């Protein structure tokens, strides 16, 4: 489903073609399947014919130079671009076999299944408790206060924040340190019990210790959730992921097992990027 080139067609510059992506785009037990995904912001063609699969139990790292469309791809997976005024998306993304862009899918319900953690910690201007409880409240996951307490406590526990904030659950979430805030945002996401967690450079605003904590957390969460993480750090991609997707100028260049990508990249662009020659 090729679309005619537009004025600022990023993909056209890359001389893109049907040869992409190289590597192995399919997963044995697919959770998310992306087909012919294209995205535009006005005239900017931000995603061009992206197609690959993300399997159950997988941590997929999205890497690529700045502006290549990683965030855009992530936002297509929970339809967060719906509300962006001149954004347009075509193609198909299925979650457990169902196309999330079909008319019958309610984006609100979809986002309860596909959670997202942002680059900059963005706790709500509410208490720590309410930050975590919010998602559970709006989706009606708890029938009484005790259940809600339970959800809040287990979520905070899982991100390792409970012992740090147990005494100050009523204080504003914005009073926490950056790393704590980011873990709070992860807790708030898992409180809704999604299947997939999207993470957009979750550690880029954090110091190395907080980063290590988040990485440990990702390891732990990967047992239960499908995780798609955008990162600019090759080390982080190598540490936390089991598959890597490399993007360049709106196109998916290469997908494959993390070890294989870092030891034996198939595409020249991938090799250049991971060895630090571009990006």
């Amino acid at each position: 489903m090729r679309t005619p080139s537009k004025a600022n067609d990023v993909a056209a510059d890359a001389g893109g073609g049907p040869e992409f992506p190289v590597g192995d785009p399919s997963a044995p037990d697919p959770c998310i399947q992306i087909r012919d995904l294209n995205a535009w912001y006005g005239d900017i063609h931000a995603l061009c014919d992206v197609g690959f699969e993300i399997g159950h139990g997988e941590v997929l790292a999205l890497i690529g130079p700045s502006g290549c469309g990683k965030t855009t791809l992530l936002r297509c997976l929970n339809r967060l671009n719906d509300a962006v005024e001149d954004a347009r998306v075509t193609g198909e993304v299925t979650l457990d076999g169902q196309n999330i862009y079909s008319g019958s899918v309610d984006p609100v319900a979809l986002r309860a299944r596909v959670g997202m953690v942002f680059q900059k910690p963005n706790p709500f201007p509410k208490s720590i408790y309410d930050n975590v409880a919010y998602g559970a409240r709006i989706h009606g996951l708890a029938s009484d206060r005790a259940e809600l307490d339970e959800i809040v406590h287990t979520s905070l526990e899982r991100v390792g924040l409970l012992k740090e904030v147990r005494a100050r659950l009523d204080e504003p979430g914005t009073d926490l340190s950056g790393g704590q805030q980011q873990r709070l945002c992860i807790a708030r996401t898992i409180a809704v019990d999604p299947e997939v967690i999207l993470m957009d450079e979750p550690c880029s605003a954090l110091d190395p210790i907080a980063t290590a904590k988040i990485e440990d957390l990702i390891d732990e969460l990967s047992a239960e959730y499908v995780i798609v993480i955008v990162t600019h750090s090759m080390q982080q991609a190598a540490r936390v992921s089991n598959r890597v997707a490399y993007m360049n100028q709106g196109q998916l260049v290469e997908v494959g097992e993390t070890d294989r990508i870092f030891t034996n990249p198939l595409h020249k662009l991938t090799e250049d990027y991971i060895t630090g020659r571009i990006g």
Partner: protein
Amino acid sequence: MDLTSILLLLAGLAVGAFLFGRSRAQALGGGVGAARNLHSLPDYYGYFAALCAVLPPLMVLTLWAAFEERVVLALLANGLPDHLQALSPGQLDLFLNSVRNAASAASVPADPVLAAATDEYLSLGRSSRWLLSGLAVVLGAGGVAAAWRSIHPAFRARNRVETAIRWFLIAASGVAVLTTVGILLAVSFEALRFFRDVSLSEFLFGTTWSPQAAIRDDQIGSAGRFGMLPLLSGTLLIAVIAMAVAIPVGILSAMYTAEYASTRVRALARPVLEILAGIPTVVYGFFAVLMVAPWIRTIGESLGLNVAAESALAAGLVMGFMIVPLVSSLSDEAIRAVPASIREGAEALGATRSEIALDIVLPAAMPGIVGGILLAVSRAIGETMIVVMAAGLAANLSFNPLESVTTVTVQITTLLVGDQEFDSARTLAAFALGLVLFIITMLLNVVGLGYVRRYRERYE
């Protein structure tokens, strides 16, 4: 030489001194690339020289303007013929006043003594101006000379100029503060005179307001005539009605334009709302009298209620609509200032538009919204025209919105309209009311700002 020419002269002096100081610095620094050998950029030496040239004459000019008239009159009085010198101070003042009037009139007065005095007065004024111009030129030249002597490569011209700028800014803010303090003092002073006639407790807690009755001498300060409770209750009642309209309509419309409307609708809706703010209050006033009040009356009567022709409800409702744009645009700003990242965080959790707006954005925007509301309350309390026209002048101590009430501002207006003795209790009461109004709005602002600040700390 008149004041305008003196000022023009000083401006010319400033430009000259600037060019002179700059070229002197450049010469000292050694021509091209001079800046490197100088402490400051050459321009700063120019500004410094200009300041030296202009500041002393300006100071003298200010003092002169303040005292010239008095000195000239004193000199004139000393030179008057003996029979005039013998007059009592009051009569002398009267005479001097007629001299001044004659001087500003074009024709020569008929009375020869007065004519002579007027001539003398005019010539004294002329010499004073010449003296002033001479002094200004001398001081300016002296300033330039002083600048000439101080300019050398190590001279910290930039620091001097920065200091001068700082003092200039301090003076500017000083003017604003001093004006406020001055007004407050003047009002308090007159209010104190009022409280010599009427006791404070009677004024604050009395339930009857009827200043007209106190005009007759035997009744000045008579019991229960200057009780301001009815005015306070009227003000409060109308403000509450107005805010009951303005707060919900203002916040909800802001919520729509900031959160829901597309860019195009927003670009259309905001200016339209803002136009409401540009309608003169007197127009709102007759809108209230001619349309809203009769309408309320008709509806009230069909329900079997007793509605006064001029009711607090009519005034309050219309005032509320007048204030909507204020609340709305300040709320809109506050809502749009909420970071998009927070909004997206909620969206990514699966919150619907209204959930985001009410649960996330509204609480985060609250400080700004509260600030807007407090401004609006101040505005409602201070508004006069609509109330004069629509709510009447009857000082009823009542919280019935269907009755006619009056407000503090309306009473101030009626007390001061027409010819008044300046020191009658009736006139002075206006100052006391003004003082109360000032204190109320100040308290509102202090409380409001405190609230805003506390909120900010929590959510920033």
